[in-house]
């Protein structure tokens, strides 16, 4: 009994602290404007309403921003996981001259923060005429996804026993055949890990999308909400929290579906 208290009481404190903003999104989304400004108890909904959600979906460009974010996240994930898988295979299995150096450089690339790159990237984007083009975010997001995924997949491929491919090689299989037919099926859990992390990181991205997209039709959820739903000092909190709630959902759904991969991937990235 005492032991239980010692666990559940501190756990409840952590729970309140860590989940409060999400509870707040949920409560605010379904409260009327009147109730948001004047309520006997902010932690309860007295007069529920769906009007914030319907207004957001019908009177703002939110559905477009949502579709944009989805497109960019899926496309950059597919591109990055593919590019990273073949790179990781080359580095760890083919051991070409210089593969050690390449693997260190890729790790270093992972710790270069976007905050240092966005200004020079802006000039490059303008020169390439990629400015305000939604698809331009796909290769740009790959710059932080590829180092991460390659690093994660190197760790994963290292642990696949070599006997399998050696047997295939004796049978005359080419390296390309081994890459696709032998290693690929075994690597699927690693690829899923890489994909869900990439999706989460892309869905979360803000700085590049803020700087490189300018017309409303090309914005992502985070950028559209902060630049178009907040005008001056007027905050439509009901609509903003409805948007935050809907914007958080895909990341949370993917997460809950693959929670074990997340934990393994996060722990692995520390251990490797």
């Amino acid at each position, binding site marked *: 009994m005492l032991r239980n208290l010692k*666990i559940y009481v501190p756990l409840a404190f952590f729970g309140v602290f860590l989940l409060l903003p999400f509870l707040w999104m949920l409560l605010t989304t379904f409260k009327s404007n009147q109730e948001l400004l004047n309520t006997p108890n902010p932690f309860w909904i007295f007069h529920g309403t769906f009007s914030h959600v319907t207004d957001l979906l019908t009177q703002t460009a939110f559905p477009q921003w949502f579709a944009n974010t989805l497109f960019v996240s899926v496309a950059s994930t597919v591109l990055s996981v593919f590019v990273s898988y*073949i790179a990781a295979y080359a580095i760890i299995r083919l051991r*070409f001259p210089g593969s050690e150096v390449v693997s*260190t450089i*890729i790790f270093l690339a992972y710790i270069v923060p976007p905050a240092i790159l966005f200004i020079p990237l802006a000039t490059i984007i303008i020169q390439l005429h990629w400015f305000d083009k939604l698809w331009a975010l796909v290769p740009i997001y*790959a*710059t932080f996804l590829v180092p991460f995924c390659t690093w994660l997949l190197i760790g994963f491929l290292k642990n696949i026993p070599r006997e399998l491919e050696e047997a295939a090689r004796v049978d005359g299989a080419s390296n390309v055949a081994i890459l696709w037919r032998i290693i690929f099926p075994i690597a699927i859990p690693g690829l899923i890990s890489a994909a869900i992390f990439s999706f989460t990181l892309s869905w979360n991205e803000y*700085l590049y999308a803020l700087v490189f997209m300018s017309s409303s039709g090309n914005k992502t959820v985070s950028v559209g909400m902060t630049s178009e739903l907040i005008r001056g000092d007027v905050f439509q909190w009901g609509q903003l929290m409805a948007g935050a709630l809907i914007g958080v959902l895909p*990341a949370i759904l993917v997460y809950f579906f693959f929670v074990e991969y997340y*934990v393994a991937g996060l722990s692995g990235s520390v251990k490797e």
Partner: protein
Amino acid sequence: MTSRSPLLARLDSPRVLGYLLITPAAIILLGLLAYPLLLGIWLSLTNATIGKPGEFVGLQNYATIFADPIFRGAALFSIFYTVCAEFGKLILGLALALLLNQQFRGYRASRALMLLPWVAPTVLSALAWLWLLDPQFSAISWLLIRLHLIHSNIDFLGSGWGARFSLIVVNIWRGLPYFAIGYLAGLQSISKDLYEAAAIDGADGWQAFRRITWPLLLPITTILVAFSSIFTLTDFQLIWTITHGGPTDATQVFTTLAYQRAISGGQLGEGAAIAVSPIVFMVVLAVFVVRSVREK
């Protein structure tokens, strides 16, 4: 399979195929990461503005920003923000990991839920925090008044120090799960025999923590702190969403100031100098990370 053409056979050799397979990654990383990194350093040595390439001006931008009290304030707050937030994440992350490392009902659900701040898009949860810290309608103030801890609403973001500490708390909120998961993995790799031996020798819980747990967690701590510091030192999303660097530049950091000068103000050269300046710290942290990762 035996009758492959010589060309295909050559393409399939480890050397040729190896270089072929890393080419896409190399193009992306050289073109959109390495080149911009160098270009950024070059830009910081020019007087470029948006739409004008500019000319080489040596270290003039650095002289300008180091003489600028707003930049000095931003540099100081970036470091203060990082040190406080890392310290908070380390303590609370370790506490949560120790808590989760015990056997109890609801372990898996707790572990899954506590990662949510790390999974949810930062800007969107920062908006929820902004609303929670509202000067008039803050639910946190409401709760504290009900508990008779304060008398009137707190204007969390209205004063410089209030805004600074609020941002540090939100940063801890967001990064704590990453530390907890890292530490949990570390704790689970410590052999139970060590604790049994310590118990036989009469060590109490605190001694076991001091002599066994903490020393064995040190390598992981280095990785977690160094890694997380790199991204906290260059944080943008949280601060830009909640305070925009205000009130009156009190919460300005390297990245928000660089954004304002370069993108809003068009001064690419000066902005690049501000963005490049934390590289000094970053290199030190990167050395720590690479070393600890190598050692493992």
